[in-house]
Structures are given as structure tokens and as C-alpha cells.
């Protein structure tokens, strides 16, 4: 014990370090979120928080549960692989409560032109028209039903300005 005879001040000093370390651990315990380090150097709970954000697009499977009549028409036409909300917009709220939110019918003059306006940048096989030249202002849905746009009994060559 003679080695520790005059070492009291060293132990007090070491005690301060130990105390500071404990304070650090206690503060860290309350400051660092519980899930930090769960999967890596980040807050693991952030993953489930982001996953819990609300959905705005219901998804075409949801639409099809009620609108099976439209699905029957659409699945036979050229727009079979165009999902409902690609044209009708995000409608998860309508799917949750169909009476509360009624979707607005899209304006075909804007809607059809978005995809089918002719431009050299589009893939060559994609059906494109110059909207002004193609119909002379007659609305698209006068001839084409958007859910199945081919005109009955006609071929592509019989469609005026269509390419």
C-alpha cells in the first residue's frame, strides 16, 4: 500500500474522469434515439416513419375492384397497359370513400395531346398526330373512346390525319 501513500489527489482526479464519463453516458442515453444503430449509423425508426406516409395513387388493382366494366373495355384495347391513374390522376381518397371524392373527368384536348402530339423525339412506332391538323378542333372523344381508342370497323389508314 506504500505505493498509494501520497496518491490521493490522483484518485480524486481519476474520479472526476469517471464521473464525466458517466455523465456522458447518461446524456447520450437520453439524447440518442433508441433506434439509432439498429441497422447502421442512422435512426432505424426513420424507415418505418417514411413507410407510414400516406399513399395518393391508389394503384390500378384498387380501381379494378369496383370498375371492372371499364377494365373489360380497356383490356381489349390499345390502352390495356395504361393504368387508370395515369390519366385520371391520384385517387386514393376516392378509393377510400367513393362518395366523398368524385374524380373530375379529364379534358381529352389536354390529356390525349400530352402523349399523342407528333414530335421527332418520340419513338417512331408510337401513334402520333398533329392535334390541330388531325381533328380540326373536334374533341378526341367524338371518334375515339379513351378506354379503347381504336375506331370500330376502321383501320389505321382510314383515320384522317393519323400517322
Amino acid at each position, binding site marked *: 500500500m506504500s505505493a498509494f501513500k501520497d496518491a490521493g489527489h490522483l484518485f480524486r482526479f481519476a474520479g472526476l474522469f469517471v464521473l464525466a464519463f458517466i455523465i456522458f453516458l447518461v446524456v447520450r442515453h437520453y439524447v440518442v434515439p433508441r433506434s439509432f444503430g439498429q441497422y447502421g449509423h442512422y435512426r432505424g425508426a426513420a424507415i418505418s416513419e417514411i413507410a407510414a406516409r400516406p399513399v395518393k395513387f391508389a394503384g390500378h388493382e384498387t380501381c379494378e375492384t369496383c370498375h371492372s366494366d371499364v377494365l373489360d373495355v380497356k383490356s381489349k384495347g390499345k390502352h390495356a397497359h395504361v393504368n387508370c391513374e*395515369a*390519366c385520371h390522376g391520384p385517387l386514393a381518397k376516392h378509393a377510400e370513400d367513393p362518395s366523398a371524392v368524385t374524380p373530375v373527368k379529364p379534358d381529352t384536348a389536354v390529356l390525349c395531346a400530352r402523349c399523342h*402530339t407528333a414530335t*421527332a423525339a*418520340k*419513338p417512331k412506332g408510337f401513334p402520333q398526330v398533329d392535334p390541330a391538323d388531325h381533328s380540326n378542333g373536334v374533341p378526341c372523344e367524338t371518334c375515339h373512346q379513351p378506354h379503347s381508342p381504336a375506331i370500330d370497323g376502321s383501320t389505321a389508314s382510314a383515320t384522317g390525319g393519323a400517322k
Partner: protein
Amino acid sequence: MNLSRRHFLVLMPAAAIAWKAVLAGTPEQAENYKLSEHWWGMLIDVPKCIGCGNCVRACAAENDVPDGYFRTWVERYHVSDENMTNPEVISPDGGKEGFPVAKEDAEKYFFVPKMCNHCSDSPCTQVCPVGATFVTPDGVVLIDPKYCLGCAYCVQACPYGCRYIHPEKKVADKCTLCYHRITKGLTTACCESCPTGARQLVDLKNPKDPIHEFLKTHNVQVLKPQMATGAKAFYNGLDGSVR
């Protein structure tokens, strides 16, 4: 010796805290969705893109992206025969309302949708000083808005320019690969609204996903492969002039 009693008093709370930390580290189990069973990516089929801007509008609607900022956007490339390494690229309002009509001039035009590449060796997550951005165990690069300081290191680090500082929240923001949708079994908002199937969500850990066959049989590239980011946005039919 009163030294041992002091040590005992010191060690007891320390051990209790350490034990609590061990307990807190036990992973929570999410219902039906297992992080370890997925490895998400995106297939972008350039020859199918018609530049309608549906994806940009859908993304903005789904994720409340502020005007003038983009989690995904569409670029139109115009490559002239004389200057193939220096294409003319336009993206008016991210392609949200489509593009001006390109006149037939026998030169090369095409659309390239851009978005976060959800890199597996992501440069953006490596520079974050506070652990606010990370690659999840299912391969999606996310931002923890509660932890982000808004220092914008990650905005600078992303070689694809896919991040921005949210003008109101003042934190970094980016594509989440619609994490709130894909964990519920839905596809992303951009894929849901793409009329031509130019964008497809892919799960590389799902052996039934058609991506495996597609990658075998097509010439697929990632953007900036020289940066070794482990990008998971796969571009089919990508022109060499795309940057």
C-alpha cells in the same frame, strides 16, 4: 477499502445503461414486409419514353414535391451528327408539362427520365456528418428529415444531381422510391402513371421478377458507371451521349 465501494457505485449505473442500450438494439419486426427480402431498383426503358411528363407530375402529387424542385425529371436529348459528344439537353420545368415539338430534321432525339439511382455504394450517404441519410437494408436511399441538418453535403456529393434542399423544411429531400408505397405492395407513383411502361420498379432479390431475364437479354447500362456508385437505376437502350 472504500475504493472498491466507490467503484461499485460507479459501475452499477454504467452497467444498467449499457444493458438498456443492448435491449434498445433489438430490431423491430415490421408486419408482412421483411427488409431482408427485397433489394429495390428501377428499370428505365429509354426507347419507350414518350416524354409526356406523367411521371414528373405523379411524383410531385404523390410526394408533395414543391414547384421547381424534382425527385424525378425527364430530359430531352438532341444529338447532332457533327457533335455527338456534346448533345443539346432540355428539360423545361423538369418535363412536367411535356416538351416543345421537335421538327423532323433527321437528327437523333430521345427522352431520358432521371431520378435517384438508389446506389448501393452511395456517395451521398457517405458524406452525411450526422447519419441522416442512409441505404436501407432493402436497398433504398432515404433521408431522415428529423435528423438532417440541411448542410447540403449530400446535395453536392450526388453525381446525378438528384437531391435538393426543401425550400420550406430546409432539409435535404430526394426520391424515396415511393418507399411508403413499395412497402405496401404497390409500385411507385411514377411507374403507376407511366403510360408506356418505360419505368418499372424491380426487386433484385425476387427470383420471379422479370428484371433478371431482362438484364440477361438486353444492353443495359447505369449512369456514370466509372464512379462505381453501385447505381440501381438500370437504363435500357441508353445512348452514349447521356451524361
